[in-house]
């Protein structure tokens, strides 16, 4: 018996009329579709599911690729529990996370509000394009450009400080343990060419103009409108971005890998770098698999929560 999954997923469209269930009951199973699905499922099964599950299994072993891998139970996870560098790296992404959900939201949200405040649609379009333009550069080139800005000898930042008479503040920004983490965070400042800007912007654009007009007639000023109307209506975007920020910091790593290699003195180690170091430098693949599996599970849980947040909104809209 074939159930009716399609009715659920396409109930939003106009065309799923009452004629469908009757016809579907008579329809035979179209066996050909399984053949059509084989290439995709085969590819994903072998190159996505198999490695992930293999990693999970081998996180319980002393993995030596190419040789026998003795089973060690939860020893790798116990080692992780006592790995101070691993927990220190979570502290670092904790700091990055705090900036990611405050300053990295506030500036893009402010920019998105200013863009919709402009009365001329052409100017809105131009500013939106200029603000997201840096996204068109490869992230590695963005990081390398910023590395150059921070350069202690020829970098723009030190030159700038020197030219306004603050040469006392000149630093080796990425080489000093006290500033390295914040230098990394400030890459791509003011963070407007980012997902939060796009999501806030789309959210604000979808608020019906009538609501703004009604607020204006009731005498609400621009700032009051922001607090009473825009912010509550953006709540769903904020929830979504909250979970995306968690997944973002868990993946954080390539900028640190390129510029600081986790140093100086482990001041910028993040979980991804610790995991890669354990695998490729220390050659402890079983332990690396345990760290990798831990990250994978946290990310799946967080993404699942993101989906739930999205789903709840759909239900509310349907009512």
């Amino acid at each position, binding site marked *: 018996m074939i159930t009716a999954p399609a009715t659920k*997923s396409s109930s939003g*469209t106009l*065309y799923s009329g009452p004629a469908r269930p009757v016809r*579907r009951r008579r329809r035979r199973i179209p066996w050909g579709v399984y053949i*059509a699905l084989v290439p*995709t*499922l085969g*590819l*994903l099964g072998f*190159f*996505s*599911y198999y*490695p*992930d599950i*293999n*990693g999970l299994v*081998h996180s319980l072993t002393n993995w030596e690729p190419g040789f026998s891998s003795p089973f060690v139970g939860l020893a790798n996870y116990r080692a992780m529990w006592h790995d101070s560098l691993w927990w220190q790296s979570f502290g670092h992404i904790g700091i990055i996370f705090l900036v990611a959900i405050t300053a990295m939201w506030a500036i893009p949200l402010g*920019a998105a509000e200013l*863009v919709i*405040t*402009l*009365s001329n649609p*052409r100017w*809105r*379009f131009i500013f939106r394009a200029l*603000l997201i*333009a*840096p*996204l*068109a*550069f*490869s*992230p*590695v*080139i963005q990081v*390398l*450009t*910023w590395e150059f800005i921070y350069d202690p000898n020829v970098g723009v930042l030190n*030159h700038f400080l020197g030219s306004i008479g603050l040469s006392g503040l000149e630093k080796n920004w990425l080489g000093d343990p006290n500033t390295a983490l914040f230098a990394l965070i400030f890459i791509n400042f*003011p963070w407007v*060419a980012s997902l939060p800007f796009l*999501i806030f912007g789309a959210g604000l*654009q979808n608020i*019906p*103009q009538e609501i703004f*007009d009604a607020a204006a007639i009731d005498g609400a000023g621009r700032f009051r409108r922001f607090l009473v109307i825009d912010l509550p209506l953006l709540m769903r975007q904020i929830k979504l971005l909250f979970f995306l920020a968690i997944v973002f910091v868990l*993946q954080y*790593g390539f900028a640190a*890998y390129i510029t600081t290699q986790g140093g100086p003195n482990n001041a910028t180690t993040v979980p*991804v770098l610790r995991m*890669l170091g354990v695998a*490729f430098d220390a050659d402890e693949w079983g332990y690396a698999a345990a760290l*990798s599996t831990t990250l*994978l599970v946290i*990310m*799946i849980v967080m*993404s*699942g929560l993101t989906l739930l947040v*999205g789903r709840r909104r*759909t239900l509310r809209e349907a009512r």
Partner: protein
Amino acid sequence: MALQPVTHPAGGLSVPAVGARHTKVRGRVVTRRRLVDLTAAAILSCLAFVGIFPYLYMLETALKSNSQFNSNEATPTWPLHFSNFVTAWGDVAPYLLASVIVAACTMIGCLALGSITGFVLARYHFPGRNLFFGLIALLLMVPNIASLIPLFVLMRDLHLLNTYPDLIIPQLTTQTVFAVVLMKTYIEQLPNELFDAAHIDGASSARTYWSITLPLARPIIGTVALFSVISVWSEYFWPELTIVTNSLRTVPVGVQFFQGELTTAYGPLFAGYIIASVPLLVLFVVLAKNFLAGIQGGLAVDR
């Protein structure tokens, strides 16, 4: 449904209402409106300038010789040295070639797999349909970095490290997942009448796929193609850890390697960054709408 809200540019539709309201109350309100506009534009200009500044600086430095850079770092100097681009081209061209090959294979593969799978999942009813889609969509939650360690071991066992398949396969799996989800969601929203009419006219499944679904899915095809290229131009760790042959390096690891070679020749270095960025820049300008649709669609898994 999830795809349409952001695609109309700049939300221009709602604007006349505001204008009309303000012209009615003349004088004070109109000037206030202007003041607000000017303030907003001024702040936005500052933000945009700070954001774009590093890239303007990159362009400026790319046109300087080393002695010009050493004597005057901050402002543009004449003559402009376009020869830096010629010097950089020789170094960057292999990375561009490798990236274009990887992106093209990824694009073709994920469009073929994504459109067939999306079509089947959206248009046929069969046992396991939701399970298969769930299994594919679940992978959307697994970032590449979380599978890197076990995938490295698998590729090593298959003796594929440091080859084109090694570069293409991880891109292909990620992009296929993305393509299936976008395609399925989109094809589901196409009106049933079209498919019923084709069925009545006696069109086979293959014909319905090729002559009806594919032409209608063109906007999504653009989105998927753009994201394949963005992904190749962004992926850093995988090529960094698995590729040692210089001609196989893609742009992200290529430019970093190139930076190590040219530590003091800033002009050619930045010229190289610009050359390496051009394909992505061009695609962004051409397919900007598809980019926004992709962001929105990728977040809206099965709404």
